[in-house]
């Protein structure tokens, strides 16, 4: 139904076979409105933001700030709580350095989970080496359940950082419940929303998390743009960990006066053209309606799930029935061979460790195959995928 809005499906044919793109958890394709916005902006509105006093700069500044407004409404934040970054990884690293580094001391506890993407593990380990705090991981089973959250919370962590939706298992964590429990123990909570925002209504006020981070490129927008939401009182209280031009009101040899939030966290010329194009992506999603998208993905996920569980040698991990993320293993066939074989039918799936080595170790696997859905997929795509998968199984048996 929505496929016609995405030019890639007209263009990326291979041996006359249409593209079946099932790797949206890695990055989504882009609708023509987002793609066309970029040359349009460069050709008609290009001037640096927040600096010029001439028309062109005021126009680009207006459009850039409009996206902050659109983004804040999209997740029910206030405008000043939205900081544009390079992506989820950048957002998490920023939080680790401007905030976590200031509050963590030796012997403090940070809780992560075994289902985290490397982007929500590596920055913490780097800081741990510097400060010496402890990191405990919430254990995860094959179904994607979080096993010992309550037990770990008994140790009074300072920070809990966890994903909203697992990029491998597809499970949707009960972030409202998790935040409540963590806050009761006095912990700050960061939610990695990279896999969630494009699939469901995210309301940061309702979740009550202290930080929520996500990327544009996983929600139909350009690469190189991300969002760091943080509660305004936190942004106001802490200084940025890196700074420079445009983030400050005045600079003398012995003093810096920062701008108000969120600008003190956005030094230098931002990637404003891509941010504005990201605004087009959110508008595209809002035009369809996020609840309608959620229902569409859920229906297609159930269709996919019913087909996958009927494949005899296939084992599913986690639960992707609501998120459209299905990771699986097929007996005696390496995920790379599955992905390469499907690629010959122009079907794109992901194979590998999905930047989640800790989870792979927990599952005792070196890699998994993953198919992930978005609104441009339809039942025909799933039929082609299943047929190619069955062909691959026959080939290798």
């Amino acid at each position, binding site marked *: 139904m929505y496929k016609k809005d995405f030019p890639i499906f007209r263009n990326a044919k291979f041996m006359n076979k249409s593209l079946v793109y099932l790797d949206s958890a890695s990055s989504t394709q882009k609708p023509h409105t987002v793609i066309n916005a970029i040359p349009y902006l460069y050709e008609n509105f290009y001037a640096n933001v927040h600096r010029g006093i001439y028309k062109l700069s005021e126009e680009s500044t207006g459009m850039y700030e409009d996206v902050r407004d659109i983004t804040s409404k999209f997740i029910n934040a206030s405008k000043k709580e939205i900081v544009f970054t390079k992506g989820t990884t950048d957002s998490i690293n920023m939080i680790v350095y401007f905030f976590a580094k200031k509050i963590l001391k030796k012997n403090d506890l940070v809780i992560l989970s075994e289902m985290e993407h490397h982007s929500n593990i590596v920055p913490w380990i780097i800081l741990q080496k510097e400060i010496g705090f402890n990191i405990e991981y919430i254990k995860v089973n094959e179904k994607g359940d979080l096993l010992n959250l309550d037990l770990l919370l008994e140790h009074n962590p300072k920070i809990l950082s966890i994903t909203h939706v697992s990029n491998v298992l597809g499970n949707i964590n009960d972030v409202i419940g998790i935040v409540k429990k963590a806050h009761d123990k006095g912990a700050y909570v960061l939610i990695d929303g990279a896999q969630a925002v494009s699939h469901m209504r995210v309301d940061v006020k309702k979740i009550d998390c202290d930080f929520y981070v996500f990327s544009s490129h996983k929600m139909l927008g350009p690469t190189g743009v991300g969002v760091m939401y943080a509660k305004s009182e936190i942004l106001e209280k802490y200084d940025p960990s890196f700074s420079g031009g445009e983030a400050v009101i005045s600079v003398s040899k012995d003093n810096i006066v920062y701008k108000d939030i969120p600008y003190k966290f956005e030094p230098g010329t931002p990637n404003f053209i891509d941010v504005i194009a990201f605004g087009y992506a959110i508008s595209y999603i809002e035009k369809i309606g996020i609840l309608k998208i959620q229902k569409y993905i859920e229906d297609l996920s159930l269709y996919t799930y019913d087909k996958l569980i009927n494949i005899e040698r296939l084992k599913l991990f986690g639960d992707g029935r609501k998120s459209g993320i299905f990771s699986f293993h097929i007996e005696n066939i*390496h*995920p*790379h*061979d599955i992905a390469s074989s499907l690629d*010959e039918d122009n079907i794109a799936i992901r194979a590998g*460790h999905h930047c989640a080595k800790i989870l*792979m170790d927990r599952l005792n696997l070196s*890699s998994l195959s993953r198919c992930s859905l978005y609104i441009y997929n339809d039942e025909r795509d799933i039929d082609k995928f299943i047929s190619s998968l069955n062909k*691959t199984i026959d080939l290798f048996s």
Partner: protein
Amino acid sequence: MNRQISSQYIIDLYKNIKYYGKLKKFTIKKELQNPLCGDIVTLYILIEKDKIVDVSFESSGCMISKVASFISLDMIKGKDLGVLKKIKFEDILDNMMIKDISPSRKKCAYLTFGGLKSIGEEYK
């Protein structure tokens, strides 16, 4: 040459892999890891009087990786150590009939070859 990994030729090689397992007696054991996928290949080589007398490998890798281990080891078995300097990656792909395989899959095939080259350097 065939870009497809589903060619009957490579599948047949895969189903008839040789040298799989651990040698009882070996002079070199080398563990290799593909950072792209985390797969691990372990090579075992028995050298006697500068001659490669026996070879074997263990692997958690994919079909391309395993067939490449088999073919690479087959190309050096029974030869003098100098063969490690002479073998070319193109020849391995040629022998597997996958010369035009995609760049990401070439890395799967390269793992054992790269390991043999570094053994060649170490045994100068």
